[in-house]
């Protein structure tokens, strides 16, 4: 149930900030549409609408109840994983191994829930890494075996393992008798990652000229990247009250989040380039599939988690 007593005022500030930004964006695009009716703003408006839904769902799932947060992130991983293996052309023989990989999702999130760090950190990279090829061997068809095992393990790492670090933030133990507010950390990394995406996109649209990776993603420009990183650092600096980090640490962490988010984004673009599709799906109007939205998070979540873990413990 909603536990208002545990709502820190700093979390309320960030929630206000998120909805404030969304309100401004909504009004801005509506005004632009009125002023230049001949220009097409439908994608931006659609995207903003979807942001409203995503932000509300995320805030509801993370802030209302701790247990729901684990289930919610697990479900998000499931959607992302399913979307990824569905576009990767697995063989029919791989179905059992995929089923085993799916069964790893509840286990991984249960390990995060009970806070068993040792098991959590090795379960997918070691246990599933050893089990999945074994399950594929039983099927007996070895043509395509290497590709299938490698792709399946990588998909599981990119979606389930990465995102499960978001859940483990909620299970971090106290340091020197001080409780670490996992929800604030989760809010910090998700907000910074998504605002970094938006800022890099906006800077690129406004001032973008020099392409970073023209072959993979023609929309990524140095102007967008640098402008986005700088703004993300500023956001991170002012939101440092969500974290137990010092100002210098928070600037460094924000910089690394911004870079990791950029890399995650182009990794997903590269996957789409490779199989020749534009969007990974049509689940989120204006954005594409679930994967198109969590691409940066799959890089920032583990990176942020381990930075925090290294600095605090």
């Amino acid at each position, binding site marked *: 149930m909603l536990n208002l007593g545990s709502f820190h005022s700093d979390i309320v500030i960030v929630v206000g900030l998120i909805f404030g930004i969304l309100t401004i964006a909504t009004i801005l695009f509506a005004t632009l549409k009125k002023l230049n009716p001949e220009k097409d703003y439908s994608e931006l408006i659609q995207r903003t609408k979807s942001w409203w839904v995503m932000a509300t769902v995320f805030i509801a799932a993370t802030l209302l109840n701790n247990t729901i947060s684990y289930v919610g992130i697990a479900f998000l991983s499931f959607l992302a994983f*399913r979307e990824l293996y*569905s576009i990767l052309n697995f063989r*029919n023989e791989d*179905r059992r191994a995929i089923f085993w990989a*799916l069964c790893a999702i509840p286990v991984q999130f249960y390990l995060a829930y009970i806070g068993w760090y040792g098991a959590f950190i090795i379960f997918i990279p070691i246990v599933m890494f050893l089990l999945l090829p074994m399950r594929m061997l039983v099927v007996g068809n070895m043509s395509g075996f290497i590709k299938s095992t490698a792709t399946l393990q990588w998909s599981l790492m990119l979606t389930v393992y990465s995102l499960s670090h978001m859940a483990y933030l909620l299970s971090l133990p106290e340091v020197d008798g001080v409780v670490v507010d996992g929800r604030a950390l989760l809010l910090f990394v998700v907000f910074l990652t998504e605002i970094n995406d938006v800022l890099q996109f906006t800077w690129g649209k406004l001032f973008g000229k020099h392409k970073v990776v023209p072959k993979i993603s023609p929309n990524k420009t140095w102007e967008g990247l640098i402008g986005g990183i700088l703004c993300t650092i500023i956001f991170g600096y002012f939101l440092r009250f969500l974290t137990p980090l010092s100002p210098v640490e928070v600037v460094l962490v924000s910089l690394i989040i911004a870079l990791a988010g950029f890399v995650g984004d182009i990794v997903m673009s590269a996957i789409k380039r490779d199989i020749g599709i534009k969007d990974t799906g049509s689940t989120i109007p204006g954005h594409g599939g679930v994967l198109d939205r969590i691409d940066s998070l799959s890089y920032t979540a583990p990176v942020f988690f381990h930075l925090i873990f290294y600095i605090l413990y």
Partner: protein
Amino acid sequence: MKKAWLIFLYSFCVYYFLKIIVGIKFRRAHFLKNTKQFIIVANHNSHLDTMALLAAMPSRLLVNVKPVAAMDHFGKTRLSSWFSRTCINAVLIKRHRDKVNPSLDPINVMLNYLDKGFSLILFPEGSRGIPEIAQPFKAGIAFVLRQRPHIPFLPAYMSGLGKAMPKGDNLIVPYGGRLVFGQLQTITSMSVDDILNQISAQLSVLKKPHKN
């Protein structure tokens, strides 16, 4: 009673199971609400095909929509036959014409149900085959449509379901797929070949990927 049971089963359980767990994208076919009678013609790769088509029916119509299934498979034992009738609401037919007993002839059985006012779901490929590969159509659908030319048919195309639950494997593994409906239409010719060509042309149009 049967109506409530089918609505609970398909419009609720199967509908959310397919959408949330299996990951099949489809919309409920609300445009059928005002159509009295129709024959759904779909490609066939999986047992999930029938599930998805029934889940996509407007719940009010559900009890009137009968999937046509092969008697040798779905009526093999008394249990499977009971299951097919109560849980799938199926019409069981023989795979081949029966000149000796006209009442058991598959075409007559289907016409009989149409005359009682039921709508049918037909898979003209006959069996599920290999996922994503179309097999030649059996002619039965054309005979039925030719006898009742005023009843419109509705082409439906599904992809990915054969990967979620292929022939010969009863484990359902979630796999992103889709179900799309074409336009309700009546046959434009009385020739069996023309009718089959009309249907397969409609299904190939739906097969092309498009943005929702």
